[in-house]
């Protein structure tokens, strides 16, 4: 039972960096741009946030610094694909490489330094409910804020005018342009938002989830976030659920080991990727495509005609 609570409660915190980064990437992809540098942005944000929190003692400053650092990288990406019309796949990988290199370079002298993580919030009364209490009502502030941000993003995507503009641009930038929407400006803002969220994700990973600096702080979680957007079929709520499932899977791998079930660890580690491929194959069939909100123009650069 304790193991179950461990997995179900811990999954929130484990899922939070994945979810933050995935929400950002979702907005980017909805605008028709794919940014493969999530891993690199998270890594840079992680080290900057760690160093700032370590030096200043303020987690808030760490988050701000991490977000700004990742936004700076996303700015490079935005300039490459929007101003220079460079290929999105190559640009994302290039910025990602720069980010990973920067992260290792800056983190070098902080190897195995530690921070104090902010205390978890124990909601009075509610956290005493058996089973549900420790799972839902003993999390840190960022977990609750991330869930709130997800709700805000659902509203933005479905109800707000700007959300609609974003979606139209991702579907067909030429039509959007003809309708009078500013394609490049919208994409620019979307990419910066993606950087901001990846920055928060990296900051959370390094200063709250695991307040110890080590190389490999992010180790593949940026790629999982990319998978998550697809797993959630570009829908915020599904991405939230997917993040929770992936978070639980990452912990279940560890919990299962001591339960003598005999599943090789590598199978468990592969599960998020296998599930993403499966979901992608199931949902990408043409008939369903429109319903599923996959941005049609994903990966295609747009230049206004003259």
């Amino acid at each position: 039972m304790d193991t179950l609570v461990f997995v179900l409660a811990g999954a929130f915190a484990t899922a939070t960096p994945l979810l933050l980064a995935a929400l950002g990437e979702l907005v980017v992809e909805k605008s028709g741009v794919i940014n493969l540098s999530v891993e690199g942005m998270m890594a840079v944000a992680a080290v900057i946030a760690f160093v700032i929190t370590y030096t200043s003692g303020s987690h808030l400053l760490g988050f701000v610094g991490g977000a700004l650092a990742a936004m700076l990288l996303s700015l490079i990406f935005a300039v490459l694909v929007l101003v220079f019309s460079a290929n999105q796949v190559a640009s994302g990988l290039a910025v990602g490489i720069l980010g990973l290199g920067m992260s290792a370079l800056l983190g070098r002298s902080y190897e195995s330094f530690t921070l104090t993580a902010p205390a978890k919030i124990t909601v009075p009364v509610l956290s005493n409910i058996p089973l549900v209490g420790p799972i839902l009502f003993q999390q840190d502030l960022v977990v609750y804020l991330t869930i709130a941000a997800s709700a805000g993003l659902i509203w933005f995507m479905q109800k707000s005018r700007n959300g609609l503009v974003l979606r139209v641009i991702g579907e067909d930038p030429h039509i959007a342009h003809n309708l009078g929407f500013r394609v490049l400006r919208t994409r620019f803002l979307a990419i910066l938002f993606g950087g901001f969220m990846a920055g928060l994700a990296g900051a959370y990973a390094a200063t709250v989830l695991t307040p110890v600096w080590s190389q490999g702080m992010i180790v593949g979680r940026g790629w999982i976030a990319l998978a998550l957007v697809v797993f959630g079929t570009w829908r915020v709520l599904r991405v939230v659920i997917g993040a929770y499932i992936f978070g639980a899977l990452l912990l279940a791998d560890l919990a299962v080991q001591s339960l003598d079930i005999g599943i090789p660890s590598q199978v468990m580690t592969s599960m998020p990727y296998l599930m993403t491929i499966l979901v992608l194959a199931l949902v990408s069939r043409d008939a369903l495509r429109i319903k599923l909100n996959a941005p049609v123009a994903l990966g295609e650069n747009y230049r206004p005609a003259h």
Partner: protein
Amino acid sequence: MNLRLEIVPRTAPSTQALMMVPAITIALSVLCAIVLFTALNHSPSLVLYSFFVEPFLDSYNLSEVLIKAGPLILIAQGLAIGFRAKVWNIGAEGQLTIGAIFAALIPITWPQSQSALMLPVMILVGGLAGAAWASIAALLRTRFNASEIIVTLMLNQIAFQILLYLINGPLKDPRGFSFPQSVPFPEAAMFPPLVEDSLLRANMSIWLVLLISVLAWVFVARSFAGFRLLVGGLAPNAARYAGFSANRAIWISLLAGGVAAGIAGVGEISGPIGKLQPILSPGYGFAAIIVAFLGGLNPIGIVLAGFFMAVIFVGADGAVLAGIPASAPVVFQGFILIFYLASYTLVNFKFRRVRGGTV
């Protein structure tokens, strides 16, 4: 804002600009490197000497450049075929891994064999296995419309987990003290050295790489099939009108990438490594994407770009010995690609001064 610069497409790609792109890229990257290394309290001239001069100073470093360039060029040739058709295979790393695993089954099964057939069969099996792994992405893309970018990316991670499982389990060397690695391969499974009885590690696989580069050049520049891929990528409607199938372009692209990466995997296990181990490739699959773009998706350009990247990799190790943090060269490589991508715009676009107007 009355006067502003605007980027407008050229009617035809500019050859003149194409020639200038590498020069601009290198100039800007070197500038950034000087700033970076000065900031790190290292003499930039010493670092640049390590990067660009030292690799050419002796036969050992030149041999290392060949070792590094081989897989980069090979994989990039395969990927470029797909990239020309706008099929984004990001999964060369996984295809390399699967190619290496299946090829390795042969020497692991017959560790005493001295058959001259072993290496050729390994190359064949490695290429086919790489292609088979890539075909998962091709199938999902053509049958289910699933993005090959995501699928190949996911397959990288899965391939790595398969490798870890096998070398920790069924393929583990029983006399290897439980370390995660296979038995060492017999000599028949290894590429013969380029120079007999020398200290140099460079091997005959470089000829295979150059041969495949020639084939890629013929395929892209001369053959009808190459034209088809070009058209399929650039204008799907035109391709369909002319009776070409977009699905076929996807299959050819991914299979070509898979074969090349699979063979590159054999080149590693039958070259510098000589067994299966957890780390088969120091990121060749991703670095090759950079090489493909640096080479302008052109087979000859890719050979040059592959050697250029290899020089930087080998030079980086020298820089590390000179006291530069191991991560600094990675940052430098990031700069190079970013500046290349930005300056490549000049090939297809030109700057024009305009008055007013909105974007």
